[in-house]
C-alpha cells in the first residue's frame, strides 16, 4: 500500500533527476514502448516503464534497490523510440551514478566491479588496456580465470597486446579524473 501525500515529489533525488533530465517524470504516460523494445528487460527486476512509474510515485529508494538500472546496456533503444521524448536511458544512467556513488550494487556486483575496474585502467593508462582490465576485473570479482580460454587465440592473432599502449595524454586524463571525483558538482565518483 502506497500512501500518497501532498508532495509525492518531495524526494530531493527525484527533483534533481527531473532538473537534470530537463523534463518532469510526468512526461511519461506509461505506454510501455521502452520496455517493449528493451533487450535487457528480461533480466531486469522491473522493466524501464515500471522504473519510471515508481519514480513518478516518489519511490526512489525502492528503484535503487532493484537491478534494472545496472543491467541497462545503454543501447538507447528506449530513448530513441519514446513517443514523449522521455530520456529513459538518461534516467537509468542517473540512477547508476547515484548507486555507484553510494556503493549500491543491488545484486549486480559484477557490473559494479567492472565499471570500477574499467575506469581504473583508463585512469592509469589514459586508454583502455584490455588484458589488464580482464585480469583486474577477474581479481576483483573473484572469477580468476574467466574468459582466459580465449586469450591464447587472441594473443596468437595479435589481438591482445602484452603491454599497455602509450601515447595518451596521461596528465590531462588524471586531471579530468581528479576534478570529476573531487570537485565537480556533477561528478563524485
Amino acid at each position, binding site marked *: 500500500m502506497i500512501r500518497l501525500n501532498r508532495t509525492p515529489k518531495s524526494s530531493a533525488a527525484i527533483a534533481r533527476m527531473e532538473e537534470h533530465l530537463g523534463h518532469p517524470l510526468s512526461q511519461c504516460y506509461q505506454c510501455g514502448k521502452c520496455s517493449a523494445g528493451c*533487450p*535487457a528487460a528480461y*533480466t531486469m527486476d522491473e522493466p524501464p516503464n515500471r522504473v519510471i512509474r515508481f519514480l513518478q510515485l516518489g519511490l526512489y529508494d525502492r528503484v535503487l534497490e532493484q537491478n534494472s538500472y545496472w*543491467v541497462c*546496456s*545503454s*543501447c*538507447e*533503444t528506449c*530513448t*530513441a523510440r519514446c513517443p514523449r521524448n522521455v530520456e529513459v536511458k538518461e534516467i537509468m*544512467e*542517473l540512477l*547508476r*551514478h547515484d548507486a*555507484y*556513488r553510494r556503493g549500491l550494487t543491488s545484486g*549486480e556486483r*559484477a*557490473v559494479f*566491479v*567492472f*565499471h*570500477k575496474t*574499467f*575506469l581504473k585502467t*583508463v585512469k592509469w593508462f589514459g*586508454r*583502455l*588496456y*584490455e588484458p589488464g*582490465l*580482464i585480469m583486474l*576485473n577477474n581479481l576483483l570479482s573473484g572469477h580468476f580465470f*574467466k*574468459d582466459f580460454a*580465449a586469450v591464447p*587465440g*587472441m594473443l596468437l*592473432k*595479435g*589481438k*591482445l*597486446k602484452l603491454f599497455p*599502449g602509450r*601515447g*595518451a*595524454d596521461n596528465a*590531462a*586524463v588524471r*586531471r*579530468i*579524473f581528479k*576534478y*570529476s571525483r573531487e570537485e*565537480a558538482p*556533477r*561528478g*563524485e*565518483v
Partner: protein
Amino acid sequence: MKFSYYPGCTLHSTAVEYDLSARAVCKTLGIELVDIPGWACCGATSAHSVNELLAYALPAHTITSATESAIAAPCAACYNRLRYTDVNLREDAHLRAEVEKALGRPYRAGVAVRHLLDIIANDVPADEIQAKLAGTLGGVKVVCYYGCLLTRPRDVAAFDDMEEPRAMDRLMELCGAEVLDWPRRVVCCGAAFSLSRTDVVYHMTGKILASALKAGADAVVVACPMCQSNLDLRQPAILKKLDLEGRIPAVYFTQLLGLCMGHSRNELGFGKIMVDTSPLIQKINSGRAETAAPAEG
C-alpha cells in the same frame, strides 16, 4: 578529404583488423587520416554509467586535441560518446564550464564528429567508390549489422535512419554482395556486459547470431569493434549454448570494401578474425568466377 582520426582503444588491440582495413580503404579513397595527439579513452561504457562529468570530459579532451576540423571515428561507441559530448557541451553552457574546468583548457567546439561509415557512404560519391573497385563480392550473402549506438538517438547520431539504416547495405550492394533483409540490424549486442554479465551477452548476441543464420547469410558485416568482438569471440560458445550449427564470420565493412579494392587479405587483417573466414573468401572467389565466366564466353 582530411580527418582527424580517433581509432579508440579497441582498434589498437582487439580490433586491430578494423584499424588496418580502415586505413587501407581510406588511403585508396584519398581520405587522409591524421592521428590525434594524446587522445584518450572515450570512457565508454563505464564512464557514462557511473560519472556524468567523466563521461563528458574524456571525449572532450580528445575532441579538443584534434587538429583537423572533423574527426573520423570508426568505433560506434566512441562515435556515440563523442557526439553526445559535442551536442551537450554546445547546448549546455553550465556543463561546458564544468568540463572546461576538468580539462583545464577551453573546449574546442565546432569539430564535426563523424563515423567512418558515414564518411565513406555519404561523403564519397558512389561512382568514385565504384571506380576504385577491382573486384566484387561475387554475390555473397551478407546481413549488415549496425548495432545500437551507430544511429541512435535520432538527434545525436543523425546520419542514417534510426530503425532501418541503409548506409552499409548500399556500400555492400555496390561491392556486389547480396544484401539480405533481416530484423536485427539495430538491436543491441550487450557489449557493456562483455565481462560483467556474460550471460546477458549470450542472450542478446545469441539472438543476433541466430537471426543472421536464419536469414542465410554468409557473413555479418559490422561497423563497431564492440559488436564484432561479441559476435566473433563469443560465437562458438553462444552457438553451442543455443544448439545451433554453423559458423558465421563477423567482418568489418572496411575489410570487405578493401577486398574489392584489391587489398590483400593480410593487409586487411582477415587472419585476425577468430571465426574462420576462408569459406567466405572461397565463396567470394567462386562467385566472382561465375559472374566473370559468361562475360568471357
